[in-house]
């Protein structure tokens, strides 16, 4: 399946937004406003959701197309035919599409199984989920973690290709690795030129402090924006 690359999962979800107004603001604009109110980095609600690598939300108002002449299939053929009649030139123009609904698009790169992830998300940030999706069709049936999983699956689209350029380790592994990289780089820089015994003593103290194998121990926090 295109959504899975080893232990990494690509969740893509389009939730149709109802037509209507909330305090004079269109539902879609209200959804966008709420999203933009969310905090950044460690303040984002998504920082509380376990196993979230990177994720984004946006409101899709409509579909768009690029209108400069491109390398369309049959383009040259239409160019020749348009010498004889203008209708061939018009036939080669792209048709104009517009969406009937606006959509809340959620694109998430996560570690592990989607059902487990969504349940943990519901339990971590249930209030934020309700606030964000409340104007979407079908969300009125969401009453708990199970119905949330069911709802998201109804909105889910399969990826045709998922490319992992980073790695698919658990988030705790990734954050611990980054913490160790940062701390060990500093240690190495700060302890240059020491005699072997003194260096080894400092190293032992360093290892005791950073606890390389302890994922629950000293590490970076999800969304940490300052070293």
């Amino acid at each position, binding site marked *: 399946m295109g959504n899975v690359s080893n232990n990494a999962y690509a969740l893509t979800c389009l939730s149709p937004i109802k037509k209507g107004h909330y305090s004079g603001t269109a539902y879609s604009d209200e959804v966008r406003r709420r999203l933009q109110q969310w905090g950044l980095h460690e303040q984002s609600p998504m920082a509380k959701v376990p196993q979230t690598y990177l994720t984004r939300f946006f409101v899709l108002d409509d579909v768009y197309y690029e209108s400069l002449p*491109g390398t369309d299939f049959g383009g040259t053929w239409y160019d020749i035919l348009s010498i004889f009649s203008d209708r061939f030139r018009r036939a080669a123009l792209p048709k104009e599409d517009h969406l009937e609904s606006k959509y809340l698009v959620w694109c998430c790169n996560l570690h592990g199984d989607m059902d487990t992830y969504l349940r943990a998300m519901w339990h971590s940030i249930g209030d934020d989920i309700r606030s964000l999706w409340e104007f979407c069709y079908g969300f009125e049936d969401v009453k708990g973690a199970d119905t949330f999983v069911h709802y998201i699956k109804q909105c889910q689209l399969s990826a045709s290709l998922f490319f992992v350029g980073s790695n698919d380790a658990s988030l705790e592994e990734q954050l611990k690795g980054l913490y160790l990289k940062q701390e060990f780089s500093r240690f190495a820089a700060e302890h240059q030129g020491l005699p072997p015994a003194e260096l080894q003593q400092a190293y032992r103290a360093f290892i005791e402090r950073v606890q390389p194998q302890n994922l629950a121990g000293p590490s970076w926090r999800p969304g940490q924006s300052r070293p």
Partner: protein
Amino acid sequence: MSNIAGKAYAMNVITPIRWYMTWINKVIFLVAQKRPSTLNGLMTLSLIHYARWVIIGRNQFPHLSPQQPKEKLNYSYMLFFSNFNGSWAQYVDSFTFAIPSGLDLFWKWNIRYPKSVPLTPFHSYIQFNQIQTDHYYTAYPLAAANDVKAAKRVKTALIEFDTQFGNADPDQFFKQYKALLRGLQHDMGDMQPTPIISLAEQAKGH
């Protein structure tokens, strides 16, 4: 609104594709997925965290309620989502220079795709079809994709070194410690919120 979270940039591109051509793209993507060697060109672009392509049939937009109007579209749509490091122009240009034929293969059947070379029409195509992100989150705003990969190597090597030589006699420890640093020299380095951690954060005055 921000496409930027720390060192990551979120790109969303939606482009129309003739519905009767989507199967060609799906076959191309399937081959790419089944044979990872076909993505070697993409692997050379080490600035990418994660990327995906999603094709939505013109009748496949989620429909969840009888009250929701059904979409009446002429085209199917291809969505491209990428998480990368660096600026927009660096990313788009690196795609063009590193894998121009791969790009053309993936977008060839999209409406009015201008091809990846020359650059200016390709820039316009991406700009015209890009949608801004309303909320973007990364679990490690200080880290680039290369940092995440390097961190894994540092962690593995450090644990291995500690197990074998952490309690060795000082001279052997010293020798192996230097070997460890030599082996990790490309993976070490301080990660800082540079040059601008987030334009949105800056705008908020934090």
